[in-house]
């Protein structure tokens, strides 16, 4: 199962690669952005994606606030991080996390799982 996804990743080369790999697996990448502000801008101007793949650590900021907002809007969230799972705050412990470097099969499956859960009205 695939759908539309927003990618937030501050390393352009990685972002582009994820975009290619997800596109190749049937996903529609609605936007690929490097900052939280850019992500929020895109969310306001384009159609709501089914899922958001968010890199946690973006230099001076994290994507936790954006993750809460996405969940609030029923968008499935999957974190991407170079750090261990323990880096998430308590209220975001149930958000699935894929660690870098990622296996794209795993990433695609995790996104699908999160999307199904979100559509069932569950968390994530």
């Amino acid at each position: 199962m695939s759908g539309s996804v927003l990618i937030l990743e501050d390393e352009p080369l990685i972002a582009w690669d994820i975009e290619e790999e997800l596109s190749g697996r049937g996903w529609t990448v609605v936007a690929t952005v490097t900052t939280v502000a850019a992500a929020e801008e895109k969310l306001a101007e384009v159609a709501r994606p089914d899922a958001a793949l968010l890199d946690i650590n973006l230099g001076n900021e994290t994507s936790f606030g954006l993750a809460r907002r996405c969940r609030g809007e029923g968008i499935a969230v999957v974190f991407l991080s170079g750090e261990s799972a323990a880096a998430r705050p308590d209220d975001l412990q149930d958000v699935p996390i894929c660690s870098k470097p990622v296996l794209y099969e795993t990433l695609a499956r995790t996104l699908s799982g999160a999307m199904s859960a979100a559509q069932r009205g569950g968390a994530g």
Partner: protein
Amino acid sequence: MEASGPARHAASPPVSGAANERLRYIIDSVVAFVGALTPDGILTDANALALQSANLSRDDVIGKPFWDTHWWSHDPAVQDRLRRAIATAAGGEFVGYETEIRVAGDARRIIYFQITPHFGPDGAVDELILSGVDITDSKLAEESARAARDTFEALVTNSPFGIYVVDADFRLSLIAKGARKAFENVAQPIGRDFDEVLRILWPEPFVSEALGRFRHTLATGEAYHSPRTVETRHDIGALESYDWKIERITLPDGRFGVVCYFYDLSEREHYEAALRQSEARFRATFENAAVGIAHTARDGRWLRVNHKLCEIVGYSAEEIEHLTFPDITYSQDIEISQQHLARLASGEIDDFQLEKRYVRKDGSLVWVKKTVGAVRADDGGLDYFIAVIEDISAQKEAQARQTLLVNELNHRVKNTLATIQAMASHTLRHADDPQKFRDAFSGRLRAIASAHDSIFQSGQGSADLAVLIASQLGVFGADDTGRVSISGDRVILGANRAHALGLIVHELSTNAAKYGALSDSSGRIDITLKETPDGNIVFDWRESGGPPVKPPARVGFGSRLIKNTVENMMQGKAQLEYKPEGLRLSLTFAKGERG
């Protein structure tokens, strides 16, 4: 007492008739033992007192060997002595000695006993006259007087205190054990003139004054006390101080004497001075220690704290002494502290070390390392705790910083691996065969490594764009040929942007070396950098003089990379032109962002 010698009596006239009766009366009334013996020791007469004293009748004793009578038969030694005395007297000599006799009720008396030989007309001893005087009472009195004198002397002499006695003749008569040291430099002090003795020890004018005091006390009985006399002793040349007192007493000889009691304060004063010094040293160590030190009671009260501890917790010593240690311990650390203290107090452990937090007076927390030991009383029970407290906040901060750095490093390594992964898959998508993949991928890895160098060499996590470009071009050996120029503003980019630009320049250089200005010996590249007042960076890459340029048949990785990173990620503009005279690229992007 014993005496013997030639008889003092010559032959005495015989006694008879009424005169005899009268004499008998006199003899019987004498409070002494009177009697007579034959020269070979048979008792022929004894006065009533002698008989009564032993509860005897004349028949019990008259006509018997004197030594076998009740008075003497209790002790063979006494009997033996008597026989010898009788033999001596029988030989014509007077004998007198002290001896013990037995009287009624098996009691003993001491008598002075005399045997006087009586010479007959022929000049031979014909009778022995006995007389004895009871000296028991005077003997006992004498013995008890001697015992009293001995006791007195023993008491004084064996006393460990400073006591000595001067007798009525002003001679030093007794020195207590505890006073001997004071007289150690006086040869044979006992019996010596006290005036002489004292002058060996003390200088004028003190010695005359002291002797005057002794004489006055001896004469009048008035006591004298000096609580503290400080003088330099003659004999040892040292300043000594004494508490001394003199009193008149009656000595066992019945005469007056003066007893002096003294206490050597010097020793106590030396001891006290040493104690004060030791206390001062301890206080200095305690107060000036570079670590916090505290004595705390079992109930947690601070008994004593040093300056450093006050500094660590931000309270004054006065304030802290009204607090207990839980009062200033961070709530989460109280329980563990108390558990350790309980184990220490019970003797289960000898000491412990703990890292904990104190709440400073201003409310801030301070990390300390606390080492605690127990001081125990003589009975083994806890007296108080000694705690040494080190401020380890800086250490803790350094630890936290280090943890942060390690996490950051981990994050960066993972990101770099992800970047390489991305680079590998991008290269794979555009490579026709493994050899091309290998060349392209290796070149891009070197570009990534080189971009890292440019960014991290500065130590700031940012890079000078011109340096970054030069380093990427350096890979192709083009920087020193004079065919490449970099001009314009000095632009500093954050890590991410610098990294992206590094890869773009790598792709441009690779392309120039393969197909463009650097593919022959005549082309050149001019790069200009500009930072506009509104915070945009303009990067202009212009190739010229190389082989004629044709647009590529398909969109390559380089142009995709430029478009993606600059237009999509940086929201910038990329204008790529394949002009016949050379490739031209103009990038405009916000410097903004973190990189």
